[in-house]
């Protein structure tokens, strides 16, 4: 397989603080890669460096085997950034056509309108579109070059459920055609259902890397939840061995733990006032939570 993206020991520091810290990564062509992490984890900075918008403080970045700033490389990629990229006083169709003119072999306008679900909005002013529609226009622009690698920074923020569904279908179709897709997301469901490979980033470092099922299996994201009696406090629960973190929802409490089997024994032995006990092996969301929390503790 060909390597689409290669990062070697990449660091980006702002005023002494490391947004990205010694990150190495190799992505094979044809992969759908999701970068997952809390706000400020370094996802956007990483993407910006892969795209050549920012230069790493140290380390090397190779995109399609070359320098991301090389126009020949740029003509083979497409990107949707977090900014809403519409231009004033141009219609949707005109905006897409303008973008198509930048490439030697663009996709046809009709196809771009179709995959972004904007056929009926073609003659509307781009600035008059709703937030979700503007995001979809951004996607049409990213796809205009029929790119080998598509970068999507938080693509579905602001999209409604239907838009998101259409969007996911489009990404899957592109992946099926052998395109490489790199996306950052807050929606774990999105990463879970789209990606072949998930990279969990926190504080500028990779803390987990694998397929969605590997991430779920390896992570210590197990949860015990119960309705707590009046005597139960945050302090008393956190003092128990094996409680990584907890979350209240009314009197309902969720305990995150690496070993729920041991924790349930501890809870019972400590005579904690509990009703309606549930033990979950954890979805990706819980896996993600516990990964980020464990990384923060260690």
């Amino acid at each position, binding site marked *: 397989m060909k390597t689409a993206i290669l990062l070697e020991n990449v660091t980006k520091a702002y005023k002494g603080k490391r947004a990205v810290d010694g990150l190495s990564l190799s992505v094979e062509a044809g992969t759908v890669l999701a970068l997952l992490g809390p706000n400020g984890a370094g996802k956007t900075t990483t993407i910006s460096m892969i795209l050549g*918008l920012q230069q790493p403080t140290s380390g090397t970045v190779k995109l399609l085997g070359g320098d991301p700033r090389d126009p020949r490389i740029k003509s083979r990629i497409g990107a949707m950034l977090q900014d809403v990229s*519409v231009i004033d006083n*141009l219609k949707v169709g005109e905006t897409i056509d303008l973008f198509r003119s930048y490439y030697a072999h663009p996709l046809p306008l009709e196809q771009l309108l179709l995959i972004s679900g904007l056929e009926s909005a073609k003659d509307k002013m781009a600035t008059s579109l709703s937030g979700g529609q503007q995001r979809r226009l951004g996607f049409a622009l990213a796809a205009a070059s029929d790119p080998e690698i598509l970068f999507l920074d938080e693509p579905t923020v602001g999209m409604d459920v239907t838009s998101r569904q259409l969007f996911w279908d489009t990404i899957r179709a592109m992946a099926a055609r052998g395109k490489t897709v790199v996306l950052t997301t807050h929606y774990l469901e999105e990463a879970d259902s789209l990606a072949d490979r998930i990279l969990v980033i926190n504080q500028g470092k990779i803390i987990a890397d694998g397929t969605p099922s590997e991430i779920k299996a390896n992570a210590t994201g197990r949860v015990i939840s119960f309705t707590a009696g009046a005597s139960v406090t945050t302090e008393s629960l956190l003092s128990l061995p094996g409680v990584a973190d907890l979350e209240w929802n009314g009197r309902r409490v969720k305990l995150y733990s690496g070993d729920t089997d041991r924790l349930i024994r501890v809870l019972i032995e400590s005579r904690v006032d509990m009703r309606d006990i549930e033990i979950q092996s954890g979805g990706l969301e819980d896996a993600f939570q516990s990964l980020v929390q464990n990384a923060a503790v260690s």
Partner: protein
Amino acid sequence: MNTTMKATMAQCNAELLRTVRNRRFVFFSVIMPVAFFFIFSSTAGNDVKVDNVDWVPYYLMSMTVYGVVGASLTSFAQRLSRERAQGWVRLLRLTPLPSWSYVLSKLVAQGIINLLIILVVFMAGGIGKHIDLPASVWLESGLWIWIGGFSFMALGSLIGSMRNPDAVQLLALIVYMSLSIVGGLWFPTSSMSGALQTISKFTPTYRLGQGAWNLIGGGSIDWNGLLILAAYVLVFMVISAYIMKKQEAV
């Protein structure tokens, strides 16, 4: 190379569309100069002279300059700041479009826009008020305003380098109005106080107007004025390049 040419033309075409659809542009650069011209050329008699030049053609030149300056300060500056605020410029950096093509398309589009303004205002005034000037003087003064008009693109890009489009709109309007008034485009500088006249001589608007007034009064090309305009271009470009570089660094 073929793709780049095609992209430059498409880019240029988009600029023209955006400008013509901008109501501010139509108002400040076309309607207002023509209306002002007819109002203030009618209130004064036909034989009034300013600095030994007939008032009616004098004021036509003033208003043409006013329209051209407005196109750069209100609509061009606004287009720039909108592009920057909305992340468009950032997105363009990810495309193979070379930056020279982006700059060239802006220059060409502004050149076409300014030329159209000059033609429209000249025709409205020339025909509407039967201004009788030799063809060579029409051509020379038109060319003077057209070429000198590019210097206001530099000022427009300086104002447009600010990120907040609302602030840009307000600032552009303030700069536009004060430069037009102090530069003697609304009322001739000879009607101003001595101190204001001295200040006026240093404004780029006065310099652009002066070159045209001079030509219709039978004078030759004002090289001094051209030099001052060129100096302004240099200063505006250096400052805006500095600001943009600072913003990139973040």
